[in-house]
């Protein structure tokens, strides 16, 4: 087995693992979030209309929050939103943060995201400052 074969096999395994992670994230979002937040995270899930408060559109609200704040809402809940911390593993919580980030991307500065997305996803449980060495760009700063 030469070096090239090993590299190809490793890449294939990495690719398959990444795909499976993505599928698990989708399934998790479908099971736990879609009923209120809707398929695209626009706050239009099947029970959203029955809730006394409006469900936020990720594109408009998540851009105002950093990863720590999003994670906190998922772990500890917020108002009527369930706390998923006691029910889910760390990896699943991270997947949820990732799903929310993905769905909120439309409201962000695309070029900044294209540059840093992989790093942020890889460390999405950590504060911006810790991952990048500085805070989020001006447009993404907490308003």
């Amino acid at each position, binding site marked *: 087995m030469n070096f090239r074969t090993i590299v190809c096999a490793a890449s294939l395994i990495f690719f398959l693992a990444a795909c499976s992670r993505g599928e698990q994230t989708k399934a998790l979002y479908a099971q736990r979030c879609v009923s209120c937040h809707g398929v695209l995270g626009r706050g239009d899930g099947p029970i959203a209309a*029955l809730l006394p408060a409006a469900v936020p559109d990720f594109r408009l609200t998540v851009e105002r929050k950093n990863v720590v704040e999003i994670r906190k809402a998922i772990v500890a809940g917020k108002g*009527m939103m369930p706390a998923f911390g006691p029910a889910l593993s760390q990896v699943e919580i991270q997947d949820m943060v990732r799903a929310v980030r993905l769905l909120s991307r439309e409201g962000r500065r695309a070029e900044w995201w294209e540059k840093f997305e992989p790093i942020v996803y890889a460390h999405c449980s950590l504060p911006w400052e810790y991952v990048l060495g500085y805070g989020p760009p001006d447009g993404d700063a907490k308003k």
Partner: protein
Amino acid sequence: MRKSNRLRGFFLALFIVLLLPVASGFESSAQAPRLGEKGASRRELHLPISDFSLTDQLGRPFRFQSLKGRVILLSFVYTSCPDVCPLITASALSAQRALRAWEKPSVFFLTVTTDPEVDTPLVLRAYANRFGVDLSNWSLLTGENSALASVWKVFGVKVKRKARGLVEHTPLTAIVDRQGILRVVYIGSSPDSRRLLRDIRALLS
């Protein structure tokens, strides 16, 4: 002749297609509104409830008998429920907030978990705080799976665990009178809080 056979076959197939959904799921879909539908179906009963012991949100033992003489509103939910449970709790909360000061000591609210694996007393306490529940006449109950299973059975609540923190259960809200007799049940995602209040007041008088 061949044409009439074909026509008969077509009508037979049509009949089967129309009958299948009726035979398979009509009863359950008629009983409870689907996800996203407002309201709940209401049914009056007369069923004495025997005493049971569980654990409240502070980790203290709780006995159902201790509430005798009060009208009790019970709801069956779990804290990480992503769909109907928050609506059920919100309806009960609206009813609690609408009670008059002199009615409050005679009415008690119980939330019984359908997921004891996740819903520890600490988790239930956080849930109550998040909703802003007034705990002076509201307890949130958990316990051993076997103890809870017998309570679920008494009230006719079916519980099926699908994954950690994901449970399928009958979305039931019930009202028990001062003598400990189950009088009204609601099955559905959001029982009307005004209707709940009317039933509570009718049992108070």
